[in-house]
């Protein structure tokens, strides 16, 4: 049954879509009016058309970038989570590794890209490494913070039930830290996209970053924009994949 809804909630629900449409519409209308050439600033419709026409080309490069991002992110998880556990459980290890981690984090990972190419060549290795380096820090930090934020009384509670540390970890520590850990994953996967694309900018023969540089050198601004859209789309898609996994494995405290 349909009910009449007041204007307020309707406007609120679709406000983001409306604003985006208005901005794109303005862009579409203002480009011809401003006298700018389509070579300098293509319209949204032109970009969308180009994306549809070049879908096979974009997809073939997107696969490469996707592979690099997912591999780098997966490495970040595989190294980051055990490292976070070691930091959480060992005070000595925390004291030893934390200053080094923070010092490494102050190095802009992007600045390492040329070096990585030098050491690892032109293939996917330097891109994966860059995606890994850039994504693993937020995973470590968010996992450690999530584990440390636990109410000590909860640990006492399960210990009073006779729980081992193993059980305490899986019944309480890990589930309580999951929202933090997934928060870290979301930041990390967005950063991994940046890492892979920067790696491709420096030296590559395939991938969306490479395609964009090609478009740039050919003054093909429309393809350039199409690539930007594809890179963003990749990031958004991965973000929602993680969001979906999170909704499967965790219960959100404030959903009612």
């Amino acid at each position, binding site marked *: 049954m349909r009910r009449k809804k007041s204007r307020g909630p309707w406007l609120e629900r679709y406000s983001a879509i409306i604003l985006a449409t208005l901005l794109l519409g303005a862009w579409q209308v203002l480009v011809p009016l401003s006298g700018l050439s389509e070579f300098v600033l293509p319209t949204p419709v032109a970009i969308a058309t180009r994306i549809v026409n070049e879908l096979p080309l974009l997809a073939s490069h997107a696969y490469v970038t996707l592979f690099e991002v997912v591999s780098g992110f997966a490495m970040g998880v595989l190294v980051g989570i055990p490292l976070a556990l070691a930091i959480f459980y060992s005070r000595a290890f925390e004291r030893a590794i934390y200053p080094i981690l923070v010092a490494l984090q102050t190095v802009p990972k992007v600045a390492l890209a040329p070096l990585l190419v030098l050491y690892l060549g032109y293939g996917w290795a330097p891109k994966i490494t860059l995606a890994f380096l850039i994504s693993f820090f937020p995973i470590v930090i968010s996992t450690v913070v999530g584990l440390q934020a636990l109410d000590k009384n909860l640990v006492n509670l399960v210990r009073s039930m006779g729980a081992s540390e193993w059980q305490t970890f899986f019944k309480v520590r890990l589930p309580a830290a999951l929202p933090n850990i997934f928060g870290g994953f979301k930041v990390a996967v967005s950063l991994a996209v940046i890492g892979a694309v920067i790696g491709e900018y420096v030296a590559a023969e395939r991938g969306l970053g490479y395609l964009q540089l090609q478009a740039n050198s050919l003054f093909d601004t429309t393809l350039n924009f199409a690539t930007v859209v594809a890179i963003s789309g990749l990031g958004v898609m991965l973000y929602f994949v993680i969001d979906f996994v999170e909704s499967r494995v*965790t219960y959100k*405290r404030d959903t009612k």
Partner: protein
Amino acid sequence: MNVIIQAGAAVDIARLSKIYKTREDEDVVALDKIDLKFEPGTFVAVVGPSGCGKSTLLSLLAGLTGASTGTIAIDGETINKPHPKIGVVFQSDLLLYWRTVLENILLPIEIKRLDVARYRSRAEELLAQVGLEGFGNKYPSELSGGMRQRVAICRALIQEPGLLLMDEPFGALDALTREQMIMDLQAMWMRLGNTVLFITHGIDEAVFLADRVLVMSPRPGRVDLDLNIDMPRPRQWSRIHENKDYHGYVRKIRDIFEAKGILVAH
């Protein structure tokens, strides 16, 4: 509905001390050679200011910390680690928000690797006893503070503990909810018959609920007064102020606190 009856455990505490070391390597005597015996099925309340060792006593009984000297025996069995005959209710409900009410109540069963399915009906009976029939599949965030603490009590009772430890269980509740919980706890305890150790700051709820009130004072943690409360049950919270004995008991406890300078009269 089956009526659940739990036999109370006998508790025997002998020469029990707990000494903590501070960072400056000084000794703090939290409990000083305490001797106590609880008859099975007794409701014992402990009142005292912060730092009087009442929470230490509870941690020792719960097996969360080890004693410096002395022993604790439950039904003749010496304990030095968490014991299945002991259930604990803490000040906050400590429900796991990602588990349903029923899953929270069954957590101790899972941890002890017992057959969860076998305890499910018992968990539902306990819920019904605290007036939460049909709430098993709700999440803690859907419940009020009082309801959540009731679930925490069910969780402590799932294993039929002979001894129920309660650490200021109503301290975080509003006054009206607290009053209702005090009444309900009395009714439940009268049905179940567990031995209860109830730790509180509230002189009123200690005297109202208990068969026996232990008054403790700090540095070193000692029992200053061991008071038997002889009032018929069920007691009515709304009418307790009409009871002369009640005021006598409260007066005795206040006298101790005033003599020790814990409460200062103006």
